[in-house]
């Protein structure tokens, strides 16, 4: 069972969209008054940039559509990042194309398209399920697809290069990818657990975590991976059967279960459905330095919760429909944006009671 969080300290606003929303991401904001968020929508498929005023006297500020970037098919993965003072958005689609474009950080208008790759032979044939951009040095974008390919796309001065890291001919369907360091990244997928790759050692993964999902009784899929910049050897993973676990590269044989029936029997299942996304939560204070950092997760059965090792989960939201995606604002970790199955987007602000009282 989960503790329900102290809701009084939360401000939660629901914004109805008249179309299905897939993924949501905060955009780095320049002004404290105007916040920007990107969301992938369907019918027609596009990435929309919305703005809202966070300092408005209106307690329920509206999300305003600023601009829209059309996609050839539905978006499967979305990420936003900053590079050389540009705010960039990268999105992959279900037909195997990758799009990167820049957005004006002041008003959210789309400035220019930087990349649009779509090639069945040299890139992906089939849905790209996950992308991640290495932002600290190389700016490389890793793409992992259902077709069993992992590609790296380098955005250079004038040219775009992409090279294949792995071609598994469909033996593995990759569903998640995350950079750990400028040269290392982790992929997850269907079947054999997690793979740790090192660009300096091509030819195959340097480490593998064979998913002993549910001690071999069930197998599952990995939907999301996150790696904390200060703990590059540990990755947290969310997947089927409500499982959230942490895998430490230094102790490869066993993983630490944070939630779900997944790996150990002793932990009480919190949610038994798909965990669509996991992210380290910088807002929740860390209990002990030896433990896994607090992790936020969202699930198909409508939960948004913060998980901690050996602690009871703190439930933030319990929606009547699935939460497909969420994002924690890196600049204001108290603010969380969530995408709900029923065509709406929610914005949750935590710990603002002082400002409310004033």
């Amino acid at each position: 069972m989960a503790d329900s969080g102290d809701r009084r300290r939360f401000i939660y606003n629901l914004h109805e969209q008249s179309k299905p929303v897939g993924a949501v991401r905060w955009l780095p904001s320049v002004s404290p008054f105007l916040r920007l968020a990107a969301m992938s929508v369907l019918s027609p498929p596009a990435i929309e940039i919305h703005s809202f005023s966070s300092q408005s006297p209106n307690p329920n500020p509206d999300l305003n559509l600023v601009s829209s970037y059309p996609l050839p098919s539905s978006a499967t993965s979305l990420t936003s990042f900053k590079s050389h003072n540009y705010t960039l958005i990268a999105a992959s689609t279900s037909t195997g194309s990758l799009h990167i474009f820049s957005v004006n950080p002041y008003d959210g208008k789309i400035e220019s398209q930087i990349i649009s790759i779509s090639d069945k032979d040299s890139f992906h044939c089939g849905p790209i399920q996950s992308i991640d951009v290495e932002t600290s040095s190389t700016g490389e974008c890793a793409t992992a697809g259902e077709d069993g390919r992992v590609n790296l796309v380098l955005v250079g001065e004038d040219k775009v290069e992409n090279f294949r890291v792995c071609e598994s001919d469909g033996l593995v369907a990759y569903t998640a990818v995350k950079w750990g360091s400028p040269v290392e990244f982790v992929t997850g997928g269907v079947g054999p657990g997690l793979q740790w790759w090192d660009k300096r050692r091509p030819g195959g993964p340097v480490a593998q975590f064979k998913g002993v999902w549910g001690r071999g009784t069930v197998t599952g899929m990995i939907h999301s991976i996150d790696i904390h910049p200060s703990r590059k050897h540990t990755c947290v993973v969310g997947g089927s059967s409500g499982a959230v676990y942490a895998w430490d590269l230094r102790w490869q044989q066993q993983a630490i279960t944070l939630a779900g029936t997944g790996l150990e029997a002793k932990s009480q299942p919190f949610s038994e459905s798909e965990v669509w996304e996991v992210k380290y939560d910088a807002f929740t204070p860390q209990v002990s330095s030896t433990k896994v950092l607090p992790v936020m997760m969202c699930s198909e059965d409508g939960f948004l919760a913060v998980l901690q090792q050996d602690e009871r989960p703190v439930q933030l939201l319990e929606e009547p429909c699935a939460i497909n995606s969420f994002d924690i604002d890196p600049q204001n970790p108290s603010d969380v944006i969530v995408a709900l199955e029923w065509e709406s987007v929610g914005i949750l602000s935590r710990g603002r009671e002082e400002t409310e009282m004033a």
Partner: protein
Amino acid sequence: MPGIPSDSSSLIPFALEGSSQPPPVYPLQHGLRAPIHRIHISWSRGNLLNVTCLRPPPDQQEEMAREDDGIGGKAIEVLLGGAILEGNIGEHKRRRIAYESVKSYAFLHDKKISLAKMETGDNLSAPALTYWWQYTLEYSKSIRDILGNARLHRPLIEDPKNFLKPEEVEQPIGTKAAWELMEIFYVDMQLLSWLPERLVDWLEGYDSLLSKTETVHSKLAILQRKVTSMRVVEDEPGYWNGLAAALAVGWLDVVAKLLRLHGSYDPDQFDKRETENGLVEAVVLLVSEMPRMRPNLPNGKLGICYQTKHDYIKGLEKWRVKVSGLESSPFWVHCNHRPTRDGLINLLHILLGDAKHIADATSHWLELFISHLLYIRPLTNGLEGMGNLAEKCMNLKPSANNGLTSLLAGILSENPEIVLADCLKAFGPWIVAHAVDLLTANSEYTDGLLNEERYQLGGASIGELYMLVYAQALASHPLTWQVAPAYLSTCLNQGRGLLEILLLRQPVQNYRVVLKTLEICHLYELGNISTHIMKMAGMYQWKHGHKGLGIYWFQQSRDRTRLSQIAHKLFDNIGKSLSDDSFKQWEGLMELLGSDVGIAGGLEFLHKYREFKRSLQQIVNGGTVEAAKKSTELLVQLMRNPSTPQRFWLPLLLDSVKLLEWRSGPLLGVSETNLLLGKLQELSMAKLRPDFHGGELKPNALGDVRLALAKNLGRAILEES
């Protein structure tokens, strides 16, 4: 009749012979030039029809095709039977209502089930019913909120000339009006004593929906637009008409506001109008003191409330005396302004319940009905009396009926089947599915009527039938189908079957969608359906070359048959080629299949087999004795190993012939040869079994091997002795 279109560009529906009404014709603009060669009609989502019109192919009429820039046809979407009143609800608003109402609905049904469990029988007994209507009322209120709260933005400084309600943020929607009407009549038992007043309130909210032009609301809206530009309002007949109309339907606050716009209130005037002003003010006072048979009044509304019938009648008598006193007052003679005098007296007549004046003031029969309830028969109770009154009003003021008025007529005629049918026609399946609980809340008769299982409906009840209709509407849209199971699960007779069909029909291309579907299967404990879906997903992925995902789904669904087929196929291929690339593939597949291959140590065997094949290759290319010996060792190891699949024995033995026929001497000893002979014998026996899997080998292969083994045995015995 395919291929034979009519000459005109209309579609004519098929009419039954002998039907009295001529078939309605709906012209369809397709913009193609005649002749139309072919028309295809197919159903799309919901009640959307796809009509494809094709012109003759170009080879027949090439010249025409050139003229028209080759437009060979057009596909048109036709939306059929859109609800009449609901033109102003967008598609996304409809979906929003569907999403949000499911929560309230599911909550009510959980309550019903838990109450039924507390009671012994299946049906709710009398004590449960007494508080059941309160749950239903709560449910009804939550649904009403979903349909839209009239959020009014009241201006800080009120303009005296703004007498009409400020423009609402959302236009009132017919569905909500219908819902409230049903709530008034069927659910709220406390309000029955002041039903007429409830209807007055209801009309105030939804008068504009009755008709576009012929309502009190439309009259007042016109007046509101004009009033700002009017200099002397009391000279305008529209002003007095508007006043009479507003008073007739009981909008007392509007009347008071309007009267205060009267010119006699103006401080800067030359004439002496004190008496006139006094009369106007007296009417305002009487209007605001009108007795009303209701517990309370919302803020800003006028009248004096009476809780009990007795007090009300007393109050009413007193007030009527005052009104008739003013009517016969001598001051009217001193009122010089004729329109004011006539207008005010008209208002007093309405207050006194003069049927003729009331009939003149109202436009729609429903308004006439309401004003009768308000001024002439305020104590009308019971549906029968109201029904008679409504019929009378309809005859007096025949106006075009729409969904709302026919709904009210249906309610008053006490026929729930008609009520539901009217609702379905006017407002679509959503309201009917949700309203069944309203109708049955307080009436055992209706409950029996709507929830009785009917043979001619395939065992379903009327209520269930409407639920199924709504669930079908939900299921036909890719965004709302996930809501449908909540309704289907409450349909005891046919819901389960339809739910299974719905789940099996979901696309399996996207694994996320599959997982969402499986989640619903899990929720409703449909284990066999989820197995089916996983098998379908597996087949789809396998066919499209996503072997990993395919095997994953097969494993999840525990599809032994397919997995072993895959394993067989895999082993068949292994014998054929041993290039590095394909070996990697097999290795991967073997790893994926894991223990499901049904052969212990599958991967270990694969590696040993490969090693053996490689060394054999070297020997064929001219190897040394050492190499040959090593190969022999590997062969014996493979044959001794219990994990070597039986199907590989014969190929291995065939391969061994090369070693057996080694020239420089026998490579296999007596015991080893005996082992191979034993295996050969076992294989010959196994061949007789029906499940033997022989592969594609020469028919005389066994004989060849046997001969070679026998020769070798002979040589080995000689050697060892």
